[in-house]
């Protein structure tokens, strides 16, 4: 008779993430229990990155023949929300990888897709997004990194800062000046002249392995350019940022949901002078606002996703609105979540201190909230004029 299988010794099979429910199950098993420790360690372990690959989380929107699952954007938003509920650092790594993979799918030639898509889908190659520089963030047109055409391809020079996943990524999507325009370039991290300096002191998304990346006479082949050159090259960046904004909006919804779940559990268990915390009207008011805002933010996100799936240009404004609403609500509710937890809100035994630190990041990245408001206000005036 065969020896009985010791179930406890077998690794649980990783089920593919295909929708919100399977994403939630993956995140509850493999991310939520460890997120505070990763924040402390300032890194997400390789093992987790591999598990994400096994679950098909890295680029499920790629077509099936390129290694993806052809996932629609509404579902992708729900999946990124669930990852953001568990850990914003992991979601940030997923966001920048998504930005690179989507840009490749949208603008890449068949040869470029052949070269990279499958490895991006499995996570064998991890991507990062390099736009910001020490001297230029919101003002993307002010970047100083250059790409100069040579007989054999391109030469890149410049410094990129605050690059999420920069310490770990294998492939960088680098935005650089090409004459008066901005082009997108795929640069393998192993290219001679690429120098990576970890950024260790950071307020939020501390496990997202940020780096400064310097490109010092980096030679790239002619196939490094992604998308058109010339004026229309700017479109590539606009599209990449739109996808990033969508993912950050989703992650922000996830933060509000995590605040709600943490506060619901804490307010149910905690007693103050014989009264349950959850019975106090001022505390109940905070929870009711979380419930309302998380639903509103999720609907804005899903509408932006629906418009993306329809190929409707209105998705760009819908995504700005979703990201602005969700990120400001996340920062507000994460602050209230710390408040509800009292001193426990400041320690490491609960997730809310981390949520608070991470939520602040959402108000700055992928278009700061000032930039969002400027853009949304433009739409307000357009609407007024159209009437």
């Amino acid at each position, binding site marked *: 008779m065969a020896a009985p299988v010791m179930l406890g010794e077998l690794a649980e099979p990783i089920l593919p993430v295909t929708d919100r429910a399977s994403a939630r199950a993956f995140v509850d098993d493999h991310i939520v229990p460890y997120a505070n420790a990763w924040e402390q360690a300032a890194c997400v372990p390789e093992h987790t990155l591999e598990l994400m690959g096994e679950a098909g989380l890295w680029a499920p929107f790629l077509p099936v023949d390129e290694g993806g699952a052809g996932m629609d954007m509404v579902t992708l938003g729900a999946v990124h929300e669930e990852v953001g509920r568990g850990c914003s650092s992991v979601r940030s790594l997923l966001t920048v990888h998504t930005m690179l993979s989507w840009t490749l799918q949208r603008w890449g030639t068949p040869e470029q897709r052949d070269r990279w898509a499958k490895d991006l889908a499995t996570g064998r190659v991890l991507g990062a997004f390099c736009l910001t520089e020490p001297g230029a963030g919101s003002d993307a047109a002010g970047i100083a990194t250059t790409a100069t055409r040579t007989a054999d391809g391109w030469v890149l020079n410049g410094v990129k800062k605050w690059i999420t996943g920069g310490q770990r990524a294998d492939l960088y999507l680098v935005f650089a000046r090409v004459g008066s325009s901005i082009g997108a370039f795929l640069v393998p991290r192993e290219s001679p002249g690429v120098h990576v300096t970890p950024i260790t002191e950071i307020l939020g998304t501390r496990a997202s392995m940020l780096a400064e990346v310097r490109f010092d006479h980096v030679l790239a082949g002619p196939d490094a350019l992604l998308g*058109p050159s010339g004026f*229309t090259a*700017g479109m590539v960046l606009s599209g990449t940022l739109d996808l990033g904004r969508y993912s950050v909006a989703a992650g922000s919804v996830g933060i509000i949901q995590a605040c709600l779940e943490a506060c619901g559990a804490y307010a149910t268990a905690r007693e103050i002078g014989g009264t349950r915390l959850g019975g106090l009207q001022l505390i109940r008011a905070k929870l009711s606002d979380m419930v309302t805002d998380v639903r509103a933010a999720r609907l804005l996100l899903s509408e932006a996703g629906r418009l993306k799936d329809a190929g409707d*240009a209105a*998705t*760009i404004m819908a995504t700005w609105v979703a990201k602005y609403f969700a990120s400001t609500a996340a920062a507000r509710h994460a602050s209230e979540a710390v408040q509800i937890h009292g001193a426990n809100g400041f320690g490491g035994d609960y997730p809310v201190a981390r949520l608070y630190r991470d939520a602040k990041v959402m108000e700055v990245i992928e278009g700061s909230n000032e930039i969002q408001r400027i853009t949304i206000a433009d739409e307000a005036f*357009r609407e007024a004029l159209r009437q």
Partner: protein
Amino acid sequence: MSQNVEEQVLDFVRGRFPQERFDADQDIFQLGFVNSLFALELVMFIEKTFAITIRGEELQIDNFRTATAMAALVARHQQAPAASGA
């Protein structure tokens, strides 16, 4: 057909810049306020409205300067559907 395409393109551009006046042969990029965000919206609008995919070499500014040029681009795709996505 291409008259209709021109009108639809012009409607979209006017909706985006309601304070401006446009006609079919006006170079919208020369007006100075068109940015890369609008260029992306324009490409998305044309792809969705006329069910075509614009790729690679076609993404040249000359194809998008005027409503007439955009109508010609759409007509080229509709005459040779096999070329879409090239």
